């Protein structure tokens, strides 16, 4: 199970829920599952978000595998200088 933590921006999609456990083995599966739970969230997560998996921020994580009990955060994509 992946443990997903939502920022305040994303909680408007989840009705205020800040944490949820979801069965998924890749980020793509996770986004699909989250969209089923919270319709519209999938599209939001697919545009301009990075994914932090167990603390490591990954810019393009769609096909990233999720280790067991992964801690997942969806974050704004960052630009460096």
């Amino acid at each position, binding site marked *: 199970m992946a443990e997903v*933590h939502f*920022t*305040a*921006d994303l909680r*408007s999609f989840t009705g205020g829920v800040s944490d949820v456990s979801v069965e998924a083995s890749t980020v793509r599966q996770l986004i699909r599952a989250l969209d089923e739970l919270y319709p519209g969230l999938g599209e939001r997560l697919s545009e301009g978000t990075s994914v*932090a998996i*167990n*603390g*490591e*921020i*990954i*810019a*393009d994580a769609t096909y990233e595998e999720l280790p067991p009990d992964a*801690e997942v*955060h969806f*974050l*704004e994509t*960052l*630009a*460096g*200088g």
Partner: protein
Amino acid sequence: MALAEDTNPMQGFKWVGSRPIRPDGFDKVTGRAKFGADLVLPGMLTGAVLRSPHAHAEIVSIDTSDAEAMPGVKSVVTGADFPEPYGKPAEQDVQRNVMAREKALYEGHVIAAVAALTREQARAALGAIKVTYKVLPHVMNVTEAMADSAVVIHDNMITKNVDPAPEAPSNVASRTVFDGGELDKGFAEADVVVEREFTTKPVHQGYIEPHAAVADTTPDGRSTVWCSSQGHFAMRTYTSNVLGWDASRLKVIPAEIGGGFGGKTVIYLEPLAVRLSQKAGRPVRIVMDRDEVFRASGPTSGASLRVKIGAKNDGTITAADVWMAFEAGAFAGSPVGAASMTALAPYKLENFKIEGFDVVVNKPKVAAYRAPGAPISSFGVESVLDEVATKVGMDPIDFRMHNAVEQGDTATYGPKFPVIGFKETLQAIKDHPNYTAELGPNQGRGVASGFWFNAGMNSTATVNINDDGTATVVTGSPDIGGSRASMALMAAEELGIDVVSIKPVVADTETVGFNDVTGGSRVTLATGAAVVEACRIIVADLKARAAKGWDIEADQVEWVDGRAQPIDGSQPAVSLAELAKNWGRTGGPISATYSHNARGVGAAFSTQVCDLEVDPDTGRVTVLRYLTAQDAGRAIHPSYVEGQLQGGVAQGIGWALNEEYIHNDDGVMENPGFLDYRIPVASDLPMIDTVIVEVPNPAHPYGVRGVGEVGIVPPLAAVANAVAAAADRRITDLPLSPVRILDAILNSED
């Protein structure tokens, strides 16, 4: 991360950590290096750009017929020569920024461009282009832009991340919020609460080399572009997008780059040069003047902030509330998101809220600038922390140490920190003699810390072994901060040959695999890891070839100091040069390529202390001493790392003390040159002392974190805190220019 599994970052190295002369040094000091403006092609035309004189205006009509008939003029382009904006909103913004369409959105916005035989002819033709404007009201800062009565720049801009979504458009592109705990409860627990408001002005990266591009478009519909950028693959992507072309029609060749700092991760001139060249049938070169660089390329945001922090008398921070609004320029996309994520990241906090707004104004579209956004939010937060520390009677380093994050702590932006070296930077400052140096009258000391994520992203490296035993390391990462040297050092370490036997090359978009921009402090980490892996493939190949000669299995061969030798010592070792000489009979050329989307990024922290003196009669600030301690993970080339640390501090001091865009009431910039836009020069600054802290990033083969950005995060607050101590009053509006300081001394009630 697979790359690090067989590596002990604490092991001793022969080349990594040494300080060889830079591979590009000779060409640069002798003037042989070719920068963007240096290229001359047969039949080449000179391009010039017509820019809007108005901050906000409807473009009623453009008549280029007189200009096209002028002597020497070979082509003219306007918005009509480019596809109607299409694609994602951010892509359309770039298309409209490169060439204005219905409206000019800032003074300097491109209206048309001309290519002619000479620069004088091109400039004369600009004057013959007839443009009819309908001038519109403009907004120049977040306060004006967020007012209910403000003119709305984009009539389709509905604020994102607001629930419910607004029905009417505004100049607020989006809202960002991070929060945790209970803010009211946290402030109720505090013994001390400090709240301040701050403002910062847009500042430019100040790269010495202006933007330049040469395009040679051929009748087959392809174009070769030479340009100064932080990433020629990105330039290819962006330029082809603006033109409506497949990227494969463009070949982009990197010129040497005279500074970027984030400002050359975007395009301005390239599509104009390609289209002018296409229409003229000849190569076209466009080079910005310095005033064009200021008026039309992206600075970083000006901002307004409100910061409130509470703490107990024992120094524990109990609550923090940060509100920020960032100027994005004429299109959405300020770094307020990153500013929000970094604002409180160095500290353990249970109760906090960070709210940020991305606001469009009639100024150039902002571009990245070293750790984009973080210096601005850090300025507010670290200034207030300084006051809180004073009020609870704690040394500012001790106060930060008491609240500092370490491995396993949850960052205010969500995830937990891996191995980090923040506390080590604090201790390094406290242990340095600068921290206890005696201060005289009108002198003050200021401390600040900062955090930046760093980045990984995509990189490719090819390593070729030459038949004389040397190696060529080919990447597509433009060398801005010493990456040629660091690539060569890591390759030397892996291959076991002298670093002078390795030639690092930055290749064009058709010669090497894809590389993302040189930005995010990522190249030594990501492209460096690709080089390491390519070298390891080559070493495995060399061991296999040597094994053939000894009729043993490859796993019975070890690679020691650039030589293959049987593990059992039954045969004399064979050098890389000897193996290279015989490559034809052992399997052909020796080459390897490694591509990856890099993982294992190591976060960076910096702590700095500034000593300065304020002249109470003039308000002038003299920086006396400056010390920066930064966790580099591992310094591959310590001299370059020190240079990065010093460069970030120098730019941050300029941001704090002098730099600002000044616009008149018409929204026209009044100081678009280095005479009136004052960046620090060598005579303005003392030697900036550096301490390279090395807490290795366990996810990188050599422990690298990335060093290019975080050094600019603390200086704004470190300088402001020192000025507050020296002048005995706090000034919360940057820059801390002599006029502003003198005004505070004479008029402040503080």
